[in-house]
């Protein structure tokens, strides 16, 4: 395995959880809801996925468990923000906090246990091609799922009626309501979808990335996913680019160190965050792009005149 091949494979692994979580959050935000609890949903997905896989011995069960955990967490958020109309920002932060604490509690007795690893697919013949083989055809199923999901979301959002409804609800919820669409219902569904994706991302961490459970193993990835959605101006294709860009910068920092270059490691470690800020500046600074693409009602609670 050559160095370049190894780097590319590592980048794919690093970028996949970001992509999964960001795509889910993109849908949530398109419907007009800002869910800052991605980190909390992700870590709950990680712990539940790990525990389920460990107990049953099956990584597939683990993935399912992570998915369900993410949905469950997101529904708490949905109930508070949509039915009880609490502040979305504060509730999202509370969700993150609860997720981090609860996951630590659940995972206590499972720390330090080796996990069940999700096996990579080995597509016969194709994955045997040197260099491109393992990269394109030798990944585990969640990598392919993340890419398929991105494409599916793009298709649904821009080419189906469902997508139109979601965008309408996010763009002008009063008009959407007047047209007879169930704004709250659509938002519940989008929040749950976002939760499912974050849960999957978490399960990826504890079943593929490092097959074990460690407290706070999401390490801030949920926040990066949120930034990616803004960076991508709510367009799925751009989320893909953003996720892989971040993954690349992240891995290159370690790579440069291993080459023996004398740049302080802290500087290299801070590059991904600085790059994210730079990306945010560039995208947000272009007011036209932002105005055109930001869901206009994002963060505003919907209260039909009762």
């Amino acid at each position, binding site marked *: 395995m050559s160095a370049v091949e190894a780097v590319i494979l590592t980048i794919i692994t690093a970028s996949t959880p970001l992509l999964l979580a960001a795509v889910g959050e993109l849908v949530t935000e398109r419907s007009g809801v800002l869910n800052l609890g991605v980190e909390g949903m992700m870590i709950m997905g990680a712990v539940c996925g790990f525990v389920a896989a460990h107990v049953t011995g099956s990584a597939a069960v683990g993935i399912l468990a992570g998915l369900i955990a993410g949905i469950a967490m997101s529904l708490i958020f949905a109930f508070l923000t949509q039915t009880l109309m609490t502040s979305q920002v504060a509730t999202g932060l509370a969700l993150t906090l609860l997720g981090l604490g609860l996951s630590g509690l659940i995972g206590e007795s499972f720390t330090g246990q080796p996990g069940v690893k999700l096996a990579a697919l080995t597509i016969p013949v194709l994955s045997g091609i040197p260099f491109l083989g393992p990269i394109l055809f030798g990944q585990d199923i969640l990598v392919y799922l993340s890419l398929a999901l991105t494409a599916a979301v793009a298709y649904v959002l821009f080419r189906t009626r469902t997508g139109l409804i979601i965008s309408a609800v996010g763009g002008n919820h009063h008009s959407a309501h007047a047209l007879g669409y169930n704004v709250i219902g659509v938002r519940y569904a989008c929040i749950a979808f976002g939760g499912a994706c974050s849960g999957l991302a978490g399960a990826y961490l504890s079943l593929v990335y490092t097959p074990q459970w460690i407290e706070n193993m999401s390490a801030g990835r949920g926040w990066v996913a949120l930034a990616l959605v803004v960076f991508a101006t709510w367009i799925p294709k751009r989320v893909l680019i953003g996720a892989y860009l971040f993954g690349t910068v992240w891995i290159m920092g370690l790579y440069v160190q*291993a080459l023996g270059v*004398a740049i302080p490691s802290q500087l290299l470690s801070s590059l991904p965050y600085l790059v994210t800020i730079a990306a945010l500046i560039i995208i947000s600074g272009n007011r036209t792009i932002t105005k055109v693409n930001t869901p206009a009602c994002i963060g505003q609670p919907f209260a039909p005149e009762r």
Partner: protein
Amino acid sequence: MRNIIGSIVIGLAITIAGTAHAADKLKVGFIYVGPIGDHGWSYQHDQGRLALEKELGDKVETVFVEKVAEGPDAERAITRLARQKAGLIFTTSFGFMNPTLKVAKKFPKVKFEHATGFKRSKNVGTYNARFYEGRYINGKIAAKMSKSGVAGYIASFPIPEVVMGINAFILGAQTVNPDFKLKVVWVNSWFDPGKEADAAKVLIGQGADILTQHTDSTAAMQIADEKGVHAFGQASDMIKFGPKAQLTAIINNWAPYYIERAKAVLNGTWKSVGSWKGLTAGTVKMAAYTNMPAGVSKMAAETEAKISSGELHPFQGPIYKQDGSLAVPAGKTLGDGPLLGMNWYVKGVDGKLPK
């Protein structure tokens, strides 16, 4: 006024504590910087605590606090144990140094032992283990087992203890293969499985077929097992995580030391010392030599025996620094002082030591 009340309260507490000792069991407290489930540094300290309970259970009871952040919170956690009438407290991370000393001043009857530190006082001793001895053995095994002649080192922070380990490793390797290469990645954390896994993959991609680490998680071992390379466990036996990958592991075995010090407090013979023991005393143990041919494990066992008996010292001259200058002349051994302050690489390490 508060001063007076405070002093009375503390005075009462100490008096009560003093009289309590005579009648009750000795309470031994442990402050861990990480979770006991880390399967690394804190886990091994806790294993030492459990061994202490098993051995002296009729005279000793133990209590611990885990995940204590180095900083202002540490002082409170240590004070809490002292107030709970602990008679002997082990603080198991470097960052607890100043908090330990501060609390020790307020509780002069309580004995404190600080791991990996260098400041002592009348009731504060320090203790450490000569991990570098294990690293030297690891280096020799690595050079024998490596086909590419390159090893990867996942390091935490450029402090003397870590640098010491890196140097010992390469010195051991150089006795087998003078051209052995070592690549170092700094993850800037003692415990970050995601980053350690990434670092492991990057190092393997750059040609390393042996991995070793001075970080606390088992992530690198798992990656090694997955990618089919070999690795060394750190702080605890990591064979569960790398059944095909682990060659051996350096095990921190604190049990003998903890039992010894608890006995000293019970006998009234406790004095503040700076203890730095290694293979000889059993503070450093090597996990079973596996996944290697019989010849290599024989060599490893022999090296271990030689270091144990004192016949061989990993840092005996001639040793050259990275810049070519002679650090230790032939026939001489590097003393404890320079070891504790080590901030230079031995010749043969790739890259510059972060300053």
